[in-house]
């Protein structure tokens, strides 16, 4: 999509030049050189070429805080994604975090590599080859290897999803052939790679015969729900987020939560909250933990702050500032644990916390659920 086409598709000519986007943007607050408003202006003033080459193009967190508030409904995150697509076509790109390791893994997955995804799953519980429910694991096995050294055990989240499902008498399908959902490729401007990954996933799920696919990672859920149908047409299976699923299991009395104890505060991931509109089920689950108390940070739900970096790109000093600010906000609530619901939020915030002298714990919601089951 050319810039002109993106302007038309997202109707950016409705821009009132009001500054709500820039005033809301977490990046603009720490990096005055970044301004969503001026990026839209530039595109409208036919300075698109400048925009494509701008390094800041890749600083946008696509967290949707701006779109949530834009008085003329300009979908800035989507507009950014399209401009990035064009920039990638012209050979520009972001500064990749972790030396581009994660992007390499994603691109490798389009080459038909053999993955041993079920081995750890068999060790964690009972899984099936066929059935109604498919558990889409996502990138956790890879994160596990890369982020072990900062103390984040991403795969333990997936293990616990299986534990909870087993406790409710469900044996989910876990597939060796499932690949990355393509989220980061899409936001890195590599739509072609995303499409290859997406087609592969749909094929794998279809051939398994599953009727329902359960996601723990918000990015996979958001992508399957909103982008797969856009690019590949309607899906013939239902897409469910694990927390909605757990809430139902709790309501039906099929699982029960154990004693958690203490004061929690919940960090809304942007993909799960603002984009997929799941605000209530994580809070509902937290509130049901016996002995637990939930307090809200000042910026919660629609107003929640991003975890500071997205798509493994342009992680910067600014990202750290955003993360530190968020952690302090969590601490100010009096909570002892900041509860995350996205593996990336957990990684990013844990990374920032490791350099701070702050008496705060970070725990994943799935872990809290599973530990009590």
């Amino acid at each position: 999509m050319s810039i002109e086409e993106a302007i038309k598709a997202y109707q950016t000519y409705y821009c009132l030049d009001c500054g709500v986007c820039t005033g809301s943007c977490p990046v603009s607050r720490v990096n005055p050189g970044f301004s969503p408003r001026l990026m839209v202006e530039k595109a409208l003033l036919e300075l698109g070429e400048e925009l494509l080459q701008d390094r800041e193009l890749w600083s946008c967190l696509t967290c949707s805080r701006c779109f949530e508030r834009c008085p003329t409904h300009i979908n800035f995150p989507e507009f950014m994604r399209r401009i990035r697509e064009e920039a990638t076509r012209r050979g520009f790109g972001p500064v990749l975090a972790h030396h581009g390791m994660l992007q390499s893994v994603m691109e490798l997955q389009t080459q038909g590599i053999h993955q041993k995804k079920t081995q750890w799953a068999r060790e964690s519980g009972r899984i099936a080859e066929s059935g109604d429910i498919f558990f889409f694991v996502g990138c956790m096995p890879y994160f596990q290897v890369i982020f072990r050294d900062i103390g984040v055990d991403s795969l333990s989240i997936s293990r616990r999803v299986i534990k909870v499902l087993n406790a409710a008498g469900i044996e989910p399908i876990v597939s060796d052939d499932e690949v990355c959902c393509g989220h980061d490729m899409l936001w890195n401007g590599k739509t072609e790679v995303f499409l290859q990954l997406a087609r592969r996933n749909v094929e794998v799920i279809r051939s398994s015969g599953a009727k329902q696919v359960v996601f723990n990672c918000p990015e996979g859920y958001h992508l399957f729900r909103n982008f797969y149908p856009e690019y590949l047409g309607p899906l013939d299976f239902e897409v469910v987020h694990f927390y909605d699923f757990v809430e139902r299991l709790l309501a039906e009395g099929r699982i029960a939560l154990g004693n958690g104890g203490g004061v929690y505060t919940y960090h809304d991931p942007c993909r799960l909250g603002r984009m997929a509109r799941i605000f209530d089920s994580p809070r509902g689950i937290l509130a049901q933990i016996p002995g637990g108390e939930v307090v809200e940070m000042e910026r919660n739900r629609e107003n929640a702050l991003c975890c500071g970096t997205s798509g493994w790109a342009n992680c910067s000093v600014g990202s750290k500032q955003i993360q530190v600010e968020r952690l302090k906000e969590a601490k100010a609530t009096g909570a002892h644990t900041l509860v995350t619901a996205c593996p990336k939020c957990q990684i990013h915030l844990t990374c920032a916390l490791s350099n701070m002298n702050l008496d705060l714990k970070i725990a994943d919601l799935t872990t809290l659920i599973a530990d009590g089951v």
Partner: protein
Amino acid sequence: MEQVSGEVGAFQVAVRKKARYVNENLCTGCGACAEKCPTMVVDVFNAGLGNRKAIYKYFPQGIPSVFTIDAAACRQLGQGKKCGVCAKVCQAKAVDYDQKDTLIQLEVGAVVIATGYEVFDPSVIPEYGYDRIPNVVTALEFERLLSASGPTAGHLDRPSELALVKEMEEAEKEHKKLQRQVSQLEEKHGKPSSEIVAAFQSGTLPDDADLRNWALLAQDLASLEARLDSMNRRKATASVARKLAFIQCVGSRDFRFNPFCSSYCCMHSVKEAMIAHEHDNGVHSSIFCMDLRAVGRGFEEYKLRGGKQANIRYIRGRVAEITQDEALNPVVWYESTQNRQVVHETFDLVILATACVPSPGAAELARQFQVELDRNGFFKTDPLAPLNTSRPGVFVCGCAQGPMDIPESVAQASSAAARAAEIVAPARQAVG
């Protein structure tokens, strides 16, 4: 309005006149009833900031100057208790608890719809925190704070401090009660409370329910005293609002809520900032807007005068969000689009210029009259005949047809009356 039939020149309209439980032919509006009425109710006219009695006048200058009983709140009418105080004190014998709603049949030649508007409820905008930050108020609430007949007699006390005063009153009442109980116990046992509390905390208190109760009461008293102390400190540092922020286009010119411009809010924010400054010369106001729409005779000059003489600063930039600091001051986050800078600034009070939206009954009324509404929910009019609805003989004026200010509403009211007279006059002359 209950029912309408007929056509231009001969409408039959059934109107329900609600019982006010006061005979308006007898009531002199003296107010003795309200003075003695024992029931306090939250005052809607004062935007919920103050209280009124169950027998009341909607607002002091209301015409006709006749009192009304709020039946739901009244002890006698709504709660089935014995009261009758207002009837007893009324010298004119105007109070009538048995009054009923009356149905009035009207034969009319033309109808003018002048049902006004509703103010947009800003609590649906999560980023402005209207429902969680006490010192964020709507323009209408601010209007009441500024009013000499309002809940603060025109002083710019902040809602957080008004709440504090209320909270302190209750805490003091509780304090007196606890103190009395504790001192009775002290007298009874001839020991100071501190001894009992110390024994209780170290676990050496004898197992006695009375002593245990005493220790708990004494502890409660101590914690209440600490709370009162901190409230007193807060009260001592509290000051009236001097640094004001006015936020324009709250709920209007916003595709999420109402795409249209509410037209009058720019001027009322300037006016409120001017009045606040007249009341207290130390007041500084910032008006956040995309463009200040001073359209009307003398409006632009008024706006400029505000800037020069009333400490008003006009900032081009729509406010992104409002947070709150520890002293309960609202913090306004915005991009100053002229300086291309994201700024956060602390204010004493934030005033939201909320949109003018169709009144909740408009759709039902339009259905009864079989007239069309426009896409925003106001009554639709003909561009070349701006008072005509889609049905002959039914006219509409003022904010029922769209946002407009008072002078324009008044002018439209005159025009609508004239349009109605055009229909009615020939018939009248024929009869006469």
